[in-house]
């Protein structure tokens, strides 16, 4: 047993962990009027976590610790960047929201930072135990955050639904992991992958793989494991919903891909059809349900379910066709990066718009573009990007997805591509409906009479960052491609 710890490799986690501890202490001793320093500290801490990551990316190479169960390679670093940047944006969104809310408490930042730390740990995990701890640290604090508005029945419902289904999915996930450990005798992904070929005929192995998929699909809110998502998003504070739809979804998603890719490639004939079905169902059910939503947060919830389906497409297609999984991996990561940016932008628009109109109903947003042209323009920008219209980033995500599917070839893959194409069209309808309400519908007297309140600078900064990156990636996609290419370097541990 060795105690050699590579402190540089752990630096991002250490910085965030230090910020968590400091934020909790700081909040205790600040008076009410100085509480914003906790938010400042959190934002700075998360940004500080990026510094060692950029340094390690520039240096290159793979760092492996704890007998190969904790690996920092380019794939892990890229994901850490995604988690930290989206966590940073969510923190920025939260500042004004939580301040304005009557339920302000400093523990908010403590919990959100803990969740970010969990996703950092998760992206480096190359064994089942570290993966599980990382994943649970990501979702655990979110049960509390979803129920943040204690006096609000909807928030309580959100928290309870999320908690019950989250715990259930954790139990299923653990059951799958224990079966896998019992069969292969190891928790480490490389050792599991090595033991799989002798066990392929074992029915319990297929069972454990399916259990793992069910557990991860709950976290990623893929259909048919999505029932908690719309209610939870609607009841939770909007920044928390944004975090759920980006970080926590990405965490479940990435965990699934890491396990399938590094530990279970030998038994892809079991999980490939399952992922295919998940992808097709998520896209179709998510999009069709989104058509009927009147509340904008619920609409985004169903849209994020559908987007999870799109994200699954390259990986499912490549696995079913038996082609190169590394190619699909990079397509998925590109999609994930772009989705994170535009979806956070859309949620920031929802926060700003809900403040302007005092409502989350799309009908009440009618004519918002006349009242506040800048906000109307941003609404159009992010929703068009989500629909995949060039020259915004969303088109490139869709392009990469379709390109990798067509590269994979085969009948079942092409069927999946056809389903994805039909769904892109359906999705455009409901995204366009929001834009129509904002720009073409006549504003109500009530909206025009509402005093024009200025929003906080932090919301403006969130919008500016996500807008800038959404446009930049759309015009210059090579930037996102870099993320995809780098993520191919996924070290399988041990080395």
């Amino acid at each position: 047993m060795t105690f050699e710890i590579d402190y540089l490799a752990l630096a991002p986690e250490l910085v965030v962990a230090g910020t968590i501890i400091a934020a909790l202490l700081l909040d205790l001793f600040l008076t009410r009027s100085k509480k914003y320093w906790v938010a400042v500290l959190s934002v700075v801490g998360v940004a500080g976590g990026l510094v060692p990551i950029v340094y390690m990316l520039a240096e290159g190479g793979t760092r492996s610790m704890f007998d190969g169960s904790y690996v920092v390679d380019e794939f892990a670093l890229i994901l850490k960047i995604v988690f930290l940047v989206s966590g940073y944006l969510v923190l920025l969104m939260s500042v004004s929201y939580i301040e304005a809310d009557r339920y302000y408490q400093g523990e908010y930042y403590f919990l959100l930072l803990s969740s970010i730390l969990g996703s950092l740990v998760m992206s480096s995990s190359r064994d089942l135990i570290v993966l599980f701890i990382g994943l649970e640290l990501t979702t655990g604090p979110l049960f509390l955050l979803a129920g943040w508005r204690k006096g609000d029945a909807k928030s309580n419902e959100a928290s309870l639904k999320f908690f019950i289904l989250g715990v259930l999915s954790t139990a299923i996930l653990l059951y799958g992991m224990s079966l896998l450990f019992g069969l292969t005798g190891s928790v480490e992904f490389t050792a599991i992958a090595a033991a799989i070929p002798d066990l392929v005929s074992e029915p319990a192995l297929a069972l454990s793989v399916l259990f793992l998929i069910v557990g991860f699909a709950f976290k990623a809110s893929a259909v048919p494991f999505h029932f908690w998502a719309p209610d939870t998003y609607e009841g939770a504070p909007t920044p928390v919903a944004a975090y759920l739809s980006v970080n926590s979804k990405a965490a479940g998603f990435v965990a699934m891909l890491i396990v399938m890719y590094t530990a279970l490639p030998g038994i892809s004939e079991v999980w490939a059809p399952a992922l295919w079905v998940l992808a097709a169902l998520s896209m179709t059910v998510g999009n069709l349900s989104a058509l009927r939503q009147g509340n904008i947060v619920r609409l985004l919830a169903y849209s994020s379910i559908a987007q999870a389906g799109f994200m699954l497409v390259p990986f499912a297609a490549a696995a079913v066709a038996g082609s190169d999984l590394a190619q699909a991996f990079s397509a998925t990561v590109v999609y994930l990066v772009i989705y994170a940016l535009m979806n956070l932008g859309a949620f920031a628009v929802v926060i700003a718009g809900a403040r302007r109109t005092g409502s989350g109903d799309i009908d009440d947003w009618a004519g918002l573009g006349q009242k506040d042209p800048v906000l109307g323009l941003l609404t159009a920008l992010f929703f068009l990007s989500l629909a995949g219209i060039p020259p915004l980033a969303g088109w490139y995500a869709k392009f990469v997805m379709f390109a990798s599917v067509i590269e994979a070839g085969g009948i079942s893959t092409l069927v999946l591509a056809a389903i994805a194409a039909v769904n892109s069209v359906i999705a455009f309808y409901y995204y366009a409906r929001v834009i129509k309400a904002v720009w073409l519908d006549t504003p109500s007297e009530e909206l025009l009479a509402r005093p024009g309140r200025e929003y906080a600078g932090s919301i403006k900064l969130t919008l500016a960052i996500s807008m800038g990156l959404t446009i930049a990636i759309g015009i210059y996609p090579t930037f996102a491609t870099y993320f995809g290419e780098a993520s191919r370097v996924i070290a399988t541990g041990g080395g």
Partner: protein
Amino acid sequence: MALVDYLPFVVMLVLAAGFVAVSLVASRFARPSNPTPEKLAPYECGITSEVEPTQRFPVKFYLVAMLFVIFDVEIVFLFAWASIFNELAWYGIAAAGIFTLFVLETLVYVWKRGALDWNVKTRSRYAREHFRIEEAA
């Protein structure tokens, strides 16, 4: 796996779906239909109380028991360190020291938040000073 190997899954699926369908249909015909708002709530849990309870229930014991469990479990980690104290030497002492600091921070947090105050009035002092609690109109 060949396609025919999935047959048990399909049989299971049909059985499960059939069971759900049969029990839903059977209960639909067997039960009286008398929906009330309480019954239609997503989480029906007993009968909704019509008045507030006549007296407040103290939750002090619950809080103290929770804190005891948390701190007790933290000590378990120190026990593992103590059993191989000599092998770990200074590295172990440093690590356990850092860990103890975190436990102490938890204690500071709990103390400052007033969770250890037995008196309800002093316990709510932190909340009064630190939260914006709008007066109910």
